[in-house]
């Protein structure tokens, strides 16, 4: 099946998401809450596009819109741009001091509005990527709490979570850098909990928490794991490979 995005004909499979088709064809659609590794949820609405079908136009969320039949898609109509601008304006009012959103304001020529009360310490746009990442690791240490305008991301009852292993995946996927990890004196502090950091056996650098190290090795059924940081692990793997190949040469 073929669909047309911004005048360009693109191959598509039935059920494929619009955003994926656009990306594959080099058409840029802005996103904040999308990550290829995690299922789409359509929370940030930045990726809205117009779909023309049977003479009618409708606004859809491209990250979760499955293509069912040949359609025409427009990603940058004046209507869409106007709505994206309002979305950026709303975001900038929520997280007034955030660099990522500030850049979006520049890109969309949005002046951060003076009208609203603002919280300069707020950085989270509640895109839920962190929660989805934590769910994917099957820890469920954080989730959204409350509803409506009081919604936030937190651990159960705002207390240190039993299941959090301090892996930092939540911070890694965060588009606005809202989740802070503090590593200090061999300890990691996040989500109101402190973790012991492990030193790499080889280079001596702190690289992860003990809980994370144990959890990963348990998942991988690794019986006697070596405490190696990512960098040293790669070097080690290179050396192992070199050994294997050198035996072949002989």
């Amino acid at each position, binding site marked *: 099946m073929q669909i047309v995005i911004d005048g360009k004909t693109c191959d598509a499979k039935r059920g494929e998401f619009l955003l994926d088709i656009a990306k594959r064809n080099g058409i840029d659609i802005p996103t904040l809450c999308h990550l290829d590794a995690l299922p789409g949820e359509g*929370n940030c*609405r930045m990726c809205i596009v117009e779909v023309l079908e049977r003479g009618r136009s409708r606004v859809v969320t491209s990250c979760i*819109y*499955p293509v069912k039949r040949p359609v025409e898609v427009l990603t940058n109509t004046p209507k869409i741009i106007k709505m994206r601008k309002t979305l950026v304006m709303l975001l900038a009012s929520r997280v007034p001091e955030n660099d990522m959103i500030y850049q979006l304001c520049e890109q969309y020529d949005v002046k951060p509005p003076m009208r609203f009360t603002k919280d300069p310490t707020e950085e989270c746009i509640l895109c839920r990527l962190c929660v989805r990442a934590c769910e994917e690791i099957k820890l469920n240490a954080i989730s959204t709490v409350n509803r409506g305008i009081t919604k936030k991301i937190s651990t159960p009852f705002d207390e240190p979570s039993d299941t959090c292993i301090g892996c930092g995946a939540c911070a890694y996927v965060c588009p606005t850098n809202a989740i802070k990890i503090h590593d200090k004196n061999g300890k990691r502090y996040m989500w109101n909990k402190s973790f012991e950091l492990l030193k790499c056996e080889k280079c001596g650098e702190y690289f992860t928490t003990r809980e994370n190290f144990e959890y990963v090795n348990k998942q991988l059924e690794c019986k006697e794991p070596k405490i190696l940081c990512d960098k040293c692990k790669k070097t080690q793997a290179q050396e192992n490979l070199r050994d294997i190949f050198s035996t072949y040469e002989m």
Partner: protein
Amino acid sequence: MNDMDKKSILVCCGPGCLSDNSDEVLANFKQKLQGQDIDIKAVVKGTGCQGLCEMGPLVRILPQDILYCKVRAADVDEIIEKTIIGNDIVERLLYHDTDSKKGVVSSNQIDFYRGQKKIALRNVGLIDPKNIDDYIAQDGYSALKKVLTQESREYAIDEIERSGLRGRGGAGFPTGIKWRQCAEFEEKPKYVICNGDEGDPGAFMDRSIIEGDPHSVIEGMTICAYAIGANNGFMYIRDEYFLAISNMTHALKQARASGFLGKNILGSGFDFDIEIVRGGGAFVCGESTALIASIEGRVGEPRAKYIHSNEQGLWYKPTVLNNVETWANVPFIINQGAERFGKIGTKKSKGTKVFSLVGKVKNTGLIEVPMGMPLRQIIFDIGGGINGNRKFKAVQTGGPSGGCIPEDHLDINVDFDSLAEAGSMMGSGGMIVMDDRSCMVDVARYYLNFLSGESCGKCIPCREGIKRMLEILNDICCGKGREGDLELLMEIAETVEEASLCGLGKTAPNPVITTLRYFKDEYIAHIKEKRCPAGVCRELTSYHIDQELCRGCGLCSKQCPQDAIAKRDKYFAIDESLCVKCGSCIDTCRFDAIKVGGRISCK
């Protein structure tokens, strides 16, 4: 004495009457009649909502059809003596016509009941919801019997489709098409869900049906389950509806015991059962996909509906989800035929619609009218007009997601499409009438405030948009409105309407959009003149007494909780420094002498 002469005493045990101790009336009747050593045979029943909540507790006596209003336990003796034993009427307990002030004996002579047409509510207020035999006596479960034993699956779907029944939950999707699409999917198992998560402020349609006639919902769901091939059903009822849950639990037990639910229903080989799921009270769970998430045990947040629930619903299996009222319509259509149903209503909106008529009308209560009835008729004939004969200002239909319709649109017909055209929506059937003492900016603010707590908060336009619109409206209401606020409101409203993820978000700006469309000058008075024309927003209101109109009766002075009104020289006057703008003087004054002005800055 044969059965025809047997009198039925129907005591309303709907939530309104119950809160006014109608259970005592019921108990008294039962006790007194049991002890009576006379050859009067009367059946006493506690029924569901009889409709005219304003006049409750209601007692209706059949077959004479005598309606008694505001009945107390102490009135029972007199009713038994005069009406049950004798054939007399207790004049003082009759309904008194709002205009002629004359007592009206029979309910069908009362304006409130006269214009109504009952389909979904056909048994509500008439039968004892805790007695399945009462339901069966009203042709109950005959539609199920007909479909299971005489007709086919296709027949049920065809009839519903031909009847033109549309979903009564608000969106108005054709029910028959929904069933047919679901029936066509081969994946199993399939599910049937009843949405009883009624959350609109001032709405009590669904609870009245569940409380007053639970078996019609069970029967409707069972017919659908048979038609689409489902064996499991879920009844999602909000937990606050204690009586509804209790009556439904009882009804399910009785239906199972009578063979209308469970294994091999009526010997047809078809198995089906229904489980009650109690909702936690989140308004958003009335949205179908959020409701499904809630049943699955996940957080009640909606998902996009690009793939419909009838393909991938509960646990990603084909699911038919309908509203309580829709289900209650189904047995009627199967029994009476699609043609008969299709004759009622308008071309595109067939049948009737249940509304809870509340607010500043004389007759508040539960009503069911044919689709297409003009709003004016509902409010002024059935509702009896505005309380205290004040001026009508607007009617809010469709709950928080609906809109406010002004006087000059009162002649529109109430159906799915006309209401949408006027910027409002049918919704599940809340209807709140407002008089000239309602400030429309304040009304918009009230609904936005409700939604700010009830939005799920998942997507940005709905969560952030509502928050900011509410902020602007709060400012306008307390005199901090600015130039450009209305444009900003509209800009945000348009984006929220178009870019939100679910139905709640897409309709959330409706209160703002419709009040801006029909009552813009009221917004401008707030922002530019710092004046609330309705005298509601306290920061923008001052009251004064028009000395030309004042007759010096002093009633206002007695009513004032702040003692702010006193006689100075010859006239009464209001002390601004004491006045809290509660408005009780306005409500008291019979000469319309209290006038509303703008903000007075107290130095």
